[in-house]
């Protein structure tokens, strides 16, 4: 089973929920934690994995053979991303704009374009206690995270429980991360921003037609607007995590909540049970 942990708003506690869930589940079943927030991956700070394997990931970008190229400009005209400029005497490729669709190579009448892999980030594999660890890290200055997220997800283990830590937002990076999940857990907080972004995230998950549940983090810090919304929309609230200064301090130091505050283990276990029960419906 693949469980994706997402949220519209950033900083609601995705990584806290994902890492603690992975730790608690690993006591009873094989678990893989997969950090798909490749722009700002943080899971490794808490799980502290021993990295066993690392390899670059990239996207195919055009390489033009100037001997064969007749400067007809068919590639430049075709490219929707303006990644090839036809300057008449020469063609200029902007690899950072390329999405790797391969269209230019296919439309070139001279077969003068071949594709080469341009690295955009690194994928690392490791182990953290009993947890299999996997994450991607986007190179600074790169704009496109979805190809790296796709490459990370290709490395997931189909035989175990996979916890996917998704990036924030409601656009392509999140979508790429949660597509293919069996269940999406949305982490929110009981504030105005929390509710507003939760509504967007719910719409996103519904657009993908995936089963979902909600966990309210720092449940006692705001008001009941999130609870009321979930009730109206018939969204299952699978857990409420307390707003606890000890948890916040442990988080600040990079310590898992379940290791710092004993009561958190039971709360996370209850959340895990609720997720599996809801996913089975």
């Amino acid at each position, binding site marked *: 089973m693949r469980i994706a942990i997402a949220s*519209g*708003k*950033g*900083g*609601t506690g995705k*990584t806290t929920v994902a890492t603690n869930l992975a730790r608690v589940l690993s006591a009873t079943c094989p678990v893989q934690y997969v950090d798909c927030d490749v*722009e*700002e991956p*943080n899971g490794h*700070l*808490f799980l502290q994995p021993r990295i066993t394997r690392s390899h670059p990931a990239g996207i*195919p970008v055009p390489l033009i053979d100037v001997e064969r190229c007749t400067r007809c400009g068919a590639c430049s005209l*075709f490219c*929707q*991303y303006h990644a090839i400029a036809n300057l008449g005497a020469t063609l200029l490729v902007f690899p950072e704009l390329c*999405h*790797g*669709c*391969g*269209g230019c190579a*296919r*439309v070139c009448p001279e077969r003068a374009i071949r594709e080469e892999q341009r690295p955009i980030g690194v994928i690392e594999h490791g182990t953290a206690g009993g947890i299999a660890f996997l994450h991607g890290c*986007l190179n*600074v*200055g*790169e*704009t*496109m*995270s979805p190809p790296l997220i796709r490459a990370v997800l290709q490395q997931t283990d189909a035989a175990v429980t996979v916890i996917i830590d998704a*990036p*924030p*937002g*409601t*656009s*392509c*990076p999140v*979508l790429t991360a949660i*597509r293919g999940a069996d269940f999406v857990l949305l982490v929110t907080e009981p*504030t*105005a*921003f929390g509710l*507003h*972004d939760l509504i*967007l995230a719910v*719409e*996103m998950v519904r*657009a*993908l037609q995936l089963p979902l549940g909600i966990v309210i983090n720092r449940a006692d*810090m*705001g*008001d009941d607007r999130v609870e009321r919304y979930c009730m109206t929309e018939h969204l299952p609230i699978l857990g409420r995590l307390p707003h606890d200064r000890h948890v*916040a*301090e442990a*988080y*600040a*130091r*990079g310590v898992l909540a379940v290791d710092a505050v004993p009561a958190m283990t039971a709360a996370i276990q209850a959340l895990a049970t609720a997720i599996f029960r809801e996913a089975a419906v």
Partner: protein
Amino acid sequence: MNEIVVISGKGGTGKTSVTAAFAALAHRAVLVDCDVDAADLHLVLSPTVEETHDFFGGRHARIIPARCRACGACAERCQFAAIRQHADSGYRVDRLACEGCGVCAHFCPHGAMVFEETCNGQWFRSSMRFGPLVHARLGIAEANSGKLVALIRREARKIAVATDAALLLVDGPPGIGCPVISSLTGADHVVIVTEPTIAGRHDLQRVIALTAYCHLPAGIIINKADLYPEGTEEIMRYALARKVAVLGCIPYDPVITQAQLVGKSVIEYTDGPVSQALREIWDRLLSFQRKE
């Protein structure tokens, strides 16, 4: 005119609360919310929308079922796995996975595909109690956030020029990818809101690397600074080593959440320690700008 962009790397560190406070403190500023897929600034600024515009960011492929012979040439060529054969309805383009490259439509041997411009969201020209606000709503699960960010910044700049505004104040998105880079290019000053947590510091390092890559001067605000004082000290040492200015610290205080719940900036809500800290930070930011 000066353009200040507020970003954070990590989400939830307080970008929008800080931007809203700056809006309350600034004179003659135009506000822009560049977090186009989870925009929250309007919740605090309660703008009156004056103009709504559709945003056309790219094109998408669509199959005309009557012409499709189910040869699969499209699916075979799609690099984004956006075209699949369904038992009941034949080949279909998954609109949410399509990246709008046009390969499938170009190579369809039966002319059964259209490649059409699509609306990816809306952007708004609004006014609120502190001046004009330009904001946007990227459609759910849509792409092209970078283009939408570039567009609303351009529109905001037009307003700033027309109204002779002194400042363009931009609330940026989290992360370091496409919409963030699009928010930063050509700005004058970057304000990074961080928190003294291991994740906050890790993400701060990546976002500082990004501002250096873009050759932009940056200053740091440490929010919830007293939550983990050792972490705050580490950030200060790091900033010193990287020659990045620390603009100030904000104490951890529930008034930020309380102000948000009633739709106010913290400056309007209270004159307590958080607001005092923000006033000092704002003055320091302005004096840095004058020096440049």
